């Protein structure tokens, strides 16, 4: 099992969700996060005072998938979230040791 974590542009969230649902992903965890990469935030001016706003709003999606689905799921996210401009975000994949469904106590593949 793998954990697919994607940090994407907020306005791309609906497209990504729809694409994942079409593929058959049944659930995910989503959070509003802030961060920056090479994009390095932006500048705002209030009454002449310039502020460097380092953090940019992003959406973080976390999905636990079977090993066999990792390439498909991460590919779908990248395709749906892509605008080709700076600040599109990142997707990373990490190993997951075990998963337990809280309701039933099912473990691992049965719990995904």
């Amino acid at each position, binding site marked *: 099992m793998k954990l697919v974590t994607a940090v994407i542009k*907020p306005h791309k969230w609906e497209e990504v969700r729809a694409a994942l649902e079409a593929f058959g992903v049944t659930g995910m965890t989503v*959070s*509003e*996060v*802030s961060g920056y990469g090479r994009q390095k*935030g932006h500048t*705002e*001016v*209030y*009454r*002449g*005072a*310039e*502020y*460097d*706003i*380092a*953090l*940019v*709003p992003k959406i973080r999606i976390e999905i636990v998938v079977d090993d066999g689905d990792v390439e498909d799921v991460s590919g779908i996210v990248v395709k749906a979230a892509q605008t080709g401009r700076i600040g599109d975000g990142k997707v990373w994949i990490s190993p997951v040791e075990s998963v337990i469904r809280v309701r039933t106590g099912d473990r691992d593949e049965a719990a995904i």
Partner: protein
Amino acid sequence: MDGYYAWMIIATALVLMMTTPALALFYGGMTRAKSVLNMMMMSYVAMAVVGIVYVLWGWSMSFSDGFSGDGKLFANPFKLFGLKDVTPDNYIYVMFQLTFAVITAALISGAIADRVKLSSWIVFLPLWATLSYFPLAHMVFGGGLIGGKIGAQDYAGGTAVHINAGVAGLVLALIVGRRVGFQRDPMRPHSLPLTMIGAGMLWVGWYGFNVGSIVFHTTFDQNPDAFLAQFYSETGRTFANTTLATMAAMLGWLLIERLMHGKATTLGAASGIVAGLVAITPACGAVDISGAIAIGAIAGGVCAWAVGLKFRFNLDDSLDVVGVHLVGGIIGTVLIGLFSTSEGAGGVDGLFYGGGLGSLGDQTLGALIAIGWSGVATAIIGLAIKYTIGWRISEEDEVNDGIDLAQHGESAYDFASLGGGGGHGLPSGALAQGSAEARGVNA
């Protein structure tokens, strides 16, 4: 006469609206999310405290010697104490002036946002009204030194209200000191829509302020025709001038910030509106339409530049009380000396209308007296509070929880959005606090 009386009831309610809620919204939107409640409270509390003091001795101290023109600094505070000997059919004029005292004091709060104990502010308000506002109101509106003796024109309070509040803001910002992290941390306005709503409501309320400030040359009973003629033409003049100067100032501000910083902003529009209203306040009766547009445009442009100066002087006049009210008040007061027309309420020609330098000198002297008086009075009170009960909340409270939680035990917003991209760290404290509260409720 009935029409005038009805208008004064409306005008008084309009000026009251300028403090609560218009100024509270205008200022509240410009603070950080953790300070908006305290900022709004400073206006609301000013309403209550200054209002009560006003009927006790404020009216008496400003207006109890019947506009005698004796050139005094203030009138007897005890003669009409608690409105004794004032009949209820005169109360509406007392209430109208009360709303002026309230908003003048409330304006100062923007210079010391986010960091002052509510108790210190409540102690400051009656002292400042007594030592600075009531005397200047007498000097300017009550027939005292500035209006009565020198004869400087100030239709609705460029000196007594805006220069007075602006100087007080400057002096208090110096005495109270800078916010922790000033010039280091981003202190962005947390809600510009609130500020835009506040500025728009100030604009509407200002018609009560300016147009309601008419002073008649005669009474209706003595000369009904002259009374009504003045009523019709002067209210039209002050209404039109207030409108056009404000429009010009908004455009002036937007133009200057577009040139200096590349973008025309909503905060610039809101600020330009207020700068224009401030500048036309003393001049709305004295000038013609073109004079009003000129004064507004100059005030908008100059104030847009002036608000940047605080960073050079490292002065944390947090919401630009100095840059808008002091600078705008001086511009409006002094430019009367250039743009005044003898057709106006004061009957004086300024330099551009063939009146020579006399008016310009009077206006400048009036502004200087207001600056000096307010500066000294505010410094005495500000230092007295600094070395007795103190001004500041603890640094811990200011930086961590914010003044809303520390002083009022409340949070303005019952949600913590991480999506807004807070410039300086995530509001993790807000999240921790929310869950702690939830536990408390469930227990």
